[in-house]
């Protein structure tokens, strides 16, 4: 096999599946062998992912534009079009500025996930680690897919292992949580699939090439040349077709993010999931939503993005404040951190839909940051839970004296999470808020500018609340007089298992699980340019196109040619509708 980027990438995606098979194969050799195989697989995948990420970072530094993009080729055909045209579906994978950090983050967090499950998972370890590895394949695949069908397959594929991970290895209410998580996200993603199909079919009719292509780069290019300008007419009402497709995509992606108020599955799933599940859910799976917006909505549906941006910005701002407020009312550590995710992903969405270079750079960085800091927080809480078997904040106190290492990591992740300058959270939040300010207070006057200004200030206020609940958590659990929950003796809890007694403070294995995250947290905080720079070639076109459209469709008194064919929806004059109502529902190009 040739050593091409495509092959390395495919290998990285498929390796965990092979690893899952190997885990099954060594089931009889005992728990130790299973864990080692799983760890070895994730490490090998991390090496491959690291190689790819480094290639991207190196490529971004070359001045030569030809060398700056890595060619992943066209992929392997699945369904090939005939000479007269037809379906064109491929196993096409590739990374670009939008995805390669997320790809690397996934590989990194998988190692953490395996390490935090080391002693926590006592029941059916083979199944557990196989599912975990299958999940890794799915997540890596989502970020690498260059084909709509392939993307959707991976997108849905991530649900199944996680469903079982939560449903089997979760806490008390695991079944309810697993089903709710599964149905909620599935319902949204079915709509997303419809939206994606609509894009593919629209492109088929418009391009006239006779090939029903599912290639994402092809679609992006094609839709940039021929923007989707259909309107759906129902009686006298005409609805902007791009907005409809956007809303369909939005259904799946916004639930995944989760954007307020579609977030209620998240706290439940987080609280019930095993530690590794929480780490991956927060660290990676939520990013699939924001990634979806960046990959599909922004480049393919720029006009709808511009039209819907103010509403999404409101939801993001609402989520920032609401998530922070609800987190303040929690007595359960995992639930508190879960609601903090709603708040933090609100920042990411705010940055993305500010539709400017600053906002997009910050939003994309915030996705990575949240993966590191919240992934780390869930891992730390999981380690506490493994020792004391309770997540209730009130049961704890003064643990810093008992577990200085754990307290140290908790403090670092907390500081990162509350956006302390010098750590990564700040490096993401600052450009986001600056981008939002730029959008709201500078630039040409637009309709609803006051709303944007209110949002920009409210979003900054979220920073104060964010510090409140996180520091409160740290104060209650780690400071004050020592208070340890009563723990049932290990022998009683796990009769017959050869569970090693955990040390009071962190073991080397646990430190190894958390330390890499801390390294990146500091690194991103001190020199974010090294992380933003390689992303920007992919983000700048989005900001340019969508940002300009935003200014155009929302300008005060737009000239006739600047107006979209149909705003969100329009009620047509009665005479015109009489003719079209005969046709009932029809898709018609208005321009």
């Amino acid at each position: 096999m040739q050593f091409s980027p495509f092959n390395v990438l495919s290998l990285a995606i498929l390796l965990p599946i092979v690893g899952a098979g190997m885990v099954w194969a060594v089931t009889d050799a005992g728990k130790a062998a299973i864990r080692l195989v799983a760890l070895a697989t994730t490490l090998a995948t991390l090496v491959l992912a690291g190689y790819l990420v480094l290639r991207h970072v190196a490529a971004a530094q070359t001045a030569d534009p030809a060398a700056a993009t890595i060619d992943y080729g066209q992929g392997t055909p699945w369904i090939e079009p005939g000479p007269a045209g037809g379906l064109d579906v491929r196993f096409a994978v590739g990374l670009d500025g939008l995805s390669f950090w997320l790809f690397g983050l996934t590989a990194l967090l998988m190692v953490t996930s395996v390490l935090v499950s080391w002693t926590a998972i006592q029941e059916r370890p083979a199944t557990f680690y196989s599912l975990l590895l299958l999940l890794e394949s799915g997540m890596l695949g989502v970020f690498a897919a260059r084909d709509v069908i392939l993307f959707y397959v991976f997108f849905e594929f991530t649900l199944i292992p996680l469903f079982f991970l939560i449903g089997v290895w979760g806490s008390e209410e695991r079944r309810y949580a697993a089903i709710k998580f599964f149905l909620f996200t599935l319902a949204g993603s079915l709509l997303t699939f419809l939206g994606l199909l609509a894009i593919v079919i629209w492109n088929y009719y418009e391009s006239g090439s006779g090939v029903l292509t599912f290639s994402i780069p092809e679609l992006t290019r094609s839709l940039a040349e021929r923007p989707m300008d259909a309107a759906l007419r129902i009686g006298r009402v005409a609805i902007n077709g791009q907005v409809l497709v956007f809303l369909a995509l939005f259904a799946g992606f916004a639930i995944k993010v989760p954007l307020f108020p579609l977030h209620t599955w998240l706290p439940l799933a987080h609280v019930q999931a095993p530690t590794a599940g929480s780490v991956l859910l927060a660290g990676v799976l939520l990013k699939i939503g924001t990634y979806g917006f960046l990959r599909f909505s922004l480049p393919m549906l720029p006009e709808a993005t511009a039209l819907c941006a103010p509403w999404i910005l409101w939801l993001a701002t609402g989520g920032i404040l609401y998530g922070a407020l609800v987190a303040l009312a929690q007595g359960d550590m995992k639930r508190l951190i879960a609601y903090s995710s709603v708040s933090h992903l609100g920042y990411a969405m705010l940055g993305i839909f500010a539709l400017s270079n600053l906002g997009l750079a910050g939003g994309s960085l915030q996705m990575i940051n949240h993966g590191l800091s919240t992934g780390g927080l869930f891992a730390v809480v999981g380690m506490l839970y493994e020792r004391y078997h309770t997540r209730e904040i009130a049961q704890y106190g003064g643990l810093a004296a008992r577990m200085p290492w754990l307290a140290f990591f908790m403090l670092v992740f907390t500081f990162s999470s509350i956006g302390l300058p010098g750590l990564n959270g700040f490096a993401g939040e600052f450009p986001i808020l600056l981008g939002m300010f730029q959008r709201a207070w500078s630039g040409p006057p637009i309709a609803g500018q006051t709303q944007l200004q209110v949002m920009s200030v409210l979003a900054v206020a979220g920073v104060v609340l964010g510090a409140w609940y996180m520091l409160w958590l740290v104060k209650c659990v780690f400071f004050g007089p020592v208070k340890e929950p009563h723990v049932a003796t290990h022998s009683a809890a796990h009769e017959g298992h050869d569970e090693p007694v955990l040390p009071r403070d962190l073991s080397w294995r646990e430190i190894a699980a958390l330390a890499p995250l801390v390294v990146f947290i500091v690194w991103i905080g001190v020199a974010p340019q090294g992380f933003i720079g390689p992303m920007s070639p992919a983000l700048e076109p989005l900001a340019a196109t969508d940002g300009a459209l935003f200014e155009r469709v929302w300008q005060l008194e737009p000239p006739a040619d600047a107006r979209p064919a149909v705003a969100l929806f329009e009620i047509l004059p009665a005479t015109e509708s009489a003719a079209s109502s005969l046709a009932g529902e029809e898709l018609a190009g208005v321009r």
Partner: protein
Amino acid sequence: MSRIDLLIVLIPALPLAATLVTAALGRRVLGTASHLPALLATATAFVLSLVLLFDVRREASAVPTQPTATTPSAGYERVVSLWTWANIADAYHGLDVKLLRAGNQPAGELIGAPGTGGFNFSIDVALRADPLTAIMLATVTLVSMLVVIYSIGYMHGDPGYWRFYTYVSLFVFSMTMLVSASNFLLLYVFWEAVGVCSYLLIGFWYQKREAAAAGMKAFLVNRVGDFGFALGVFLIWVTYGTLNFHDVNYHDMLDASDATGPAKVAVTGVLGTTRLLAPASEAYVGGAIGLAIALLLFVGACGKSAQFPLHVWLPDAMEGPTPVSALIHAATMVTAGVYMVARCTPLFLAAPEASHVVAAIGGFTALLAALIAVTQTDLKRVLAYSTISQLGYMFLGLGTASLAGITAGMFHLFTHAFFKALLFLGAGSVMHAMGGVIDMRSFGGLRRKLPVTHWTMFIGSLALAGVVPLAGFWSKDEVLAAVLDKAVAAGEAGESVASLYRTLYWGALFTAGLTAFYTFRAFFWTFYGEERIPPEAGHHAHESPANMIGPLAVLAILSAFVGWWFAMTHGFARLLNLTPSLAYAPLQPEHAAHGGHLTVAAVSTLVACGGILLAAYLYCGDRSEVRALARWFAPAYRLSYSKFFIDPIYNAVVVLPLRGLAAVSYWIDRYVIDALVNLCGYLPLAIGALLRPLQNGVVPFYAMVMVLGMLVLLVGSLLG
């Protein structure tokens, strides 16, 4: 790389190295020698700061002192860029901002309009050397070094000895970076970083519930201030299109589309030479935006420098170890707000009303804190309120928006660092001897047990009270004089402004009397009267070891002479005024300073002596008059003793409502939003339940329905 460049990098780098070494080796290797890295780093940093100070002075003296039309002066600065923090292309589109570019671009041309390619958001990790920075660096490293030495004795035997020195080194690093940062982003970074060090050090004895709570409170109140600061920084970006203080020469500041333009284009910094030398109306944005920027920055300063209404965290911060109170919560970190406002002087000059607010808040805080301090019984809290009050004086000076006032404010910062650190370290020495007890009701008459502490604190108290010729006298006197001058000068502008400053002057004078009173009240209560030693002290009630006494003595000498020396030689003012922000032309006095300050000096000295005599009369005897006074003025006494009930008010007005809102939000989350989701989930089930009876498996029923349906169709078609 010139020597100044090297120094400006080395000074923060040394404490950073000490932090890393102590953190890595402290627990296992260094143990009780954990102070060595910090000691070495701060001592070297202090020496280097002195070298830097003299280098900057030499370089700055070369700049013409008096700006003329032909040779404009914007002071001296030198900037070192280490690495690029972030560089995001095409980030700024300004519309009505002038003077974005100098160089070959004509000033005033609109830059970055849509379609022309905007400015990059380009932020370097850039450090600067100028007189203001050099003075701050010297002050910070000197006090740090003394506190590090003092802590060897004070923290001796503490199980967290290495942790203490890690945090202190980290603080020194952050503070030195804060004062040498050359853009608003870096300033904000270290602004929060010193806040974290403060959080960690207040909560150093984290097993004490009050300590943990105080740390969190400090952080959160500061976050409220930082909220304003951040908004101010964002507005600066939106208004000026850069966050740099200094002018930047960048090849790559141009967008690719402009690549044919001039090779070197200067982007003028917010406080850069180009802007400072330009006509003020073109260089700075006034009006509502200018006012908003200045006031938001001041909100940040209020948080960090504990000004009303964000002063509530500082008294609680006394839960931390006393050397920390001396270093962070008296001498250095809390003055960051003063430093920042002084640094941003041109932004405040652009909106004159902002300066009135600064002066009013400063003056009010000075009075409020002094009123609280007169009844507190915790020695450290008296000093904490005194710090708040003195910081108020500094802001009062800055709020005059005159060169004399700002210089006086900064001079007061400088002298205050020494005598307040001295008083705190003295209080620490008392606390050390009293077995950790700091409530003045529990001890008294300690002057024989603690002779050196007594004498050094006497000097510190005199300096704080503002008695000739100690440090506090000179700087406080200059602040008062500047306020009076401003009142006179403002008389031409408008009667309301003049009366504001006149009120502030009398208020400040009254506060000076209060200051002398509460300072000597605490001093006499602690050291005079009948000798009482609390049982906690055991056999430890003796003078502190040499490593604690030494720093006290050094600070006492400094407190005694530093004000006199610099006030007489004008060395401080002459150097400070070469800072770019202060060499700004609109700030320069039109005529030489008035000579008539002798009256102010005489009046303030009289007031101070009055305060001291009153304290001596009330507190040197059996204090029966005090009890009588407290009874006669019971409501006023209670108001002062309970700190004007500000904490409970905040609790009722801010904390509880937010907690309530949080609870309501959580209720809504479960019973509205999630309930709606579940409702959607049950819809298919409900529809299924509706249709289920139809599938009852009874064949005759199916037949009947079929027949009925056909009948309906038949009838329909017949009728149609």
